């Protein structure tokens, strides 16, 4: 009953709105024709009003932006907690300074000119000014210099992010599927054993690891949460088994896709443990998070993983409590499926 009522009142409201606008237009048209005014072409009165509108809008626009910053700045991402992330934050800041300076100046000039040079009885003639090579050269060269700085700074950081990881980096794998992440630690040999998607068996071998490969024997497969040691470089190999997934670590300021059929890699060094960060933010429930950031299906929005950064001792204790994927019984048995 109420549904039907709502439905028809919405129809009625939209219909009345259209009739209202239509009638307003008719009245306005008739009255302008009577007064001999043009209905479609702006006159001085319009120019004055709209010119003032430009400045009012500008003030409102700036006020809205400033309000948003004040209201929400504490809800944005906390400072970065990785080595590359800290540099990234600095570069961000440099960009913001440039962006805000240019934004406020050009926006203010744009709307102010609209107001200042509105056509009215005092301003009936425009200044014929087709070009000025010097000016144009200035606003080609100045942005170029600013950009050169950003490019050099940005590329040096990009180089650091994508360089080869150190030999002691902790090796692990993130394995994505609809709609969760599985983590595999490389174990004592710090080597991830080989896998094949044809060996996948959800119950006994979710990653499709070769049971006969010694490199696989000590690999530890974990679900539910990922632990990382603080201040040690981690080197992550990313894979997916069904569709593409995104691996986004916002607090560490890094991200890469997990792509079926190939491996992608990332590395960074976490710099703050979860406990330290909770203290710093004064929030006992805070957690780092790994989220899927490549649309992957209906459950995409629910695909995330808790990330815990531990002190080295805590980390070793946690990892030590996990059992490797394969028991002794599996070792040495040649996997028939793989041979096919």
């Amino acid at each position, binding site marked *: 009953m109420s549904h039907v009522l709502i*439905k028809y009142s919405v129809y009625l409201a939209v219909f009345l709105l259209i009739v209202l606008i239509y009638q307003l237009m008719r009245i306005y048209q008739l009255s302008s024709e009577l007064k001999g005014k043009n209905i479609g072409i702006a006159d001085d009165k319009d120019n004055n009003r709209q010119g003032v509108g430009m400045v009012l809008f500008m003030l409102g626009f700036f006020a809205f932006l400033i309000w948003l910053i004040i209201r929400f700045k504490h809800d944005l991402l906390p400072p970065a907690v990785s080595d590359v992330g800290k540099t990234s934050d600095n570069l961000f800041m440099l960009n913001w300074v440039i962006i805000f300076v240019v*934004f406020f100046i050009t926006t203010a000039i744009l709307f102010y000119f609209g107001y200042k040079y509105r056509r009215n009885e005092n301003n009936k003639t425009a200044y014929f000014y087709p070009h000025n090579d010097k000016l144009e050269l200035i606003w080609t060269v100045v942005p170029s210099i600013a950009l050169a700085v950003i490019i050099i700074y940005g590329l040096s950081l990009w180089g650091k992010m994508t360089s080869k990881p150190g030999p002691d980096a902790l090796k692990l794998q993130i394995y994505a599927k609809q709609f969760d992440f599985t983590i595999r630690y490389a174990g004592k040999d710090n080597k991830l054993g080989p896998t094949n998607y044809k060996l996948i068996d959800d119950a006994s071998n979710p990653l499709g690891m070769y049971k006969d490969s010694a490199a696989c024997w000590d690999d530890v497969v974990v679900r539910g949460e990922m632990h990382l040691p603080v201040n040690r470089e981690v080197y992550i190999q990313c894979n997916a088994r069904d569709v593409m997934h995104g691996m986004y670590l916002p607090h560490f300021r890094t991200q890469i896709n997990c792509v079926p059929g190939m491996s992608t890699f990332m590395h960074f060094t976490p710099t703050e443990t979860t406990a330290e960060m909770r203290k710093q933010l004064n929030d006992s429930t805070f957690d780092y998070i790994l989220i899927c950031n490549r649309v992957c299906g209906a459950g995409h929005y629910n695909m995330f993983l808790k990330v815990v950064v531990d002190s080295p001792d805590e980390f070793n204790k946690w990892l030590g409590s996990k059992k490797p994927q394969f028991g002794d019984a599996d070792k040495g048995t040649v996997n028939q499926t793989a041979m096919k």
Partner: protein
Amino acid sequence: METHAHEITHTAEHTEHHHHEHPKLSFIEKYVFSMDHKIISKQFLFTAMFMAFAAAIMSVLFRIQLAWPGHSSSVMHYFLGDRWAKGGILDPNMYLGLITIHGTIMVFFLLTGGLSGTFANLLIPLQVGARDMASPMMNMLSYWFFFISSLIMFISLFIETGPASAGWTIYPPLSVLPQAIPGSGLGMTLWLTSIALFVVSSLLGGLNYIVTVINLRTVGMKMTRLPLTIWALLITAVLGVLSFPVLFGAAILMIFDRTFGTSFYLSDIYIGGQALSQTGGSPILFEHLFWFLGHPEVYIVIMPAFGLMSEIISINARKPIFGYRAMIGSMLSIAFLAFIVWGHHMFVSGMNPFLGSVFVFTTLLIAIPSAVKAFNYITTLWKGSISFNPQLLFVVGAVSTFISGGLTGIILADSALDVAVHGTYFVVAHFHIVMGLSAVLAMFGGVYHWFPKMFGKLMNKKMGYWHFWLTFICAYGVFLPMHFLGLAGVPRRYYTNDAFAPWAKLQDINIIVTIFAIVGVLSQIIFFVNFFYSMFKGTKSDENPWRANTLEWTTPLVPEHGNWPGPLPVVHRWAYDYSKPGKEHDFVPQTVPMEEGELDEGEHS
């Protein structure tokens, strides 16, 4: 003498013109299967308006979901029924379907087909001084392919498994495997068919635009005397002709993967308890092919907007466009760079990081010609005598959004920073402002400006003002707050934004955005009423209502097929002699001969 030479070169075309002087065209020939570029332009406009309205309603639906997730909404149930909104709660699969089709329609059907289709068709023959396009037949086909393509895309909303729902970028394997998402069944097949037809439409149109601008300029219309609208539309057409075929290829390969079991994009996939046999393909191949079109595509969207903005600002400020040659140069350099920056969409794809560095460099270079354009628009306003017709408000709005949205681009162009915000609402905010809003606002400006040429009537300015302010305020109201979601790490394409505790604090932003979105969409009703009312009952316009210089205002108010009843006009000067010292009026039409010793600014600026 000049006229005589011109008569000879156009003999063939004149014969055709005589043919059209028999006024015996049936309604269907005149208005439906028309070969008149002006009718075709209106057909593009009407189709695009319909599609855009549908896409705008979709955006309201998914915005309602994001602001009040889990709450029953009768609006949702009204549009989507029990199938997709049981109990008034949006289905997650349909959520993805809505965002996918919203993006597809807005990018392709409104801002490519609609924007180029409307204004290239209307303005190219009229502003270069031609009787029609080089091939009116191809032009008609271009519209009808567009129409069929729109129809298929629209129909795909109503099928049982839902529309394509892998995002408008349709990355495989998601878009290939119906096991992964229901929208990748028939919905995706229809999407690919529709887009393949769209590419055909775009190529038929684009080739025609290029040939017309190169070959059918009237006597005296040198390239350096072309209005910037024509330069912009020409460059757009070149971009489209060079990049759309790549999308066509990508779509065909995807059809093969979906239908014939090939593995261009698939490898090592285990899904639904089964290991697929495809190996050796790569989704990254698709990303390269897609973005090789996809990036030029955003310039295909913004370039015509640049043209409309230049023309409208200059006319309403009563000043020549500042730096005419620099404007052409900047458009050419943007167009060139457009082809070597596609990889900046792929910084997180896993492609070689060195390749990423190259794309960072080329992408940031685009900021330079873009800055030149923004400063030149502002300088054109400086010391002008600005008439605030509705179209001027819209293009000033477009300059503002181009600046605001362009600036956040320098963050996203930098691969090292992009990885921190890639795929979040920061990106959504950036591209909606810089490309979506700028192009939509400029397109509205174009409609207000050339409405008299299309229908012989003026649109109501009061309603134009209401339409502008509501649209403009709501546009920023929607997209400015989105930056903050992005900086909090909230990814796009999430069915709810409060799945993770810290984001729940940002739910106010989602509500603000949705309220602005609803008001913004509703205020388009003002535009639609104004548009159709003025079309039928509006006040009649003068022949040159904006006192403009370009050739379209030298025809009868609403010209017949053939545009000029007599011989074609002859051009003597560039299009921007506004407020030239020593002239009687503040405008000098291009057909007015140069005086002794007068400087042709198009040649020398």
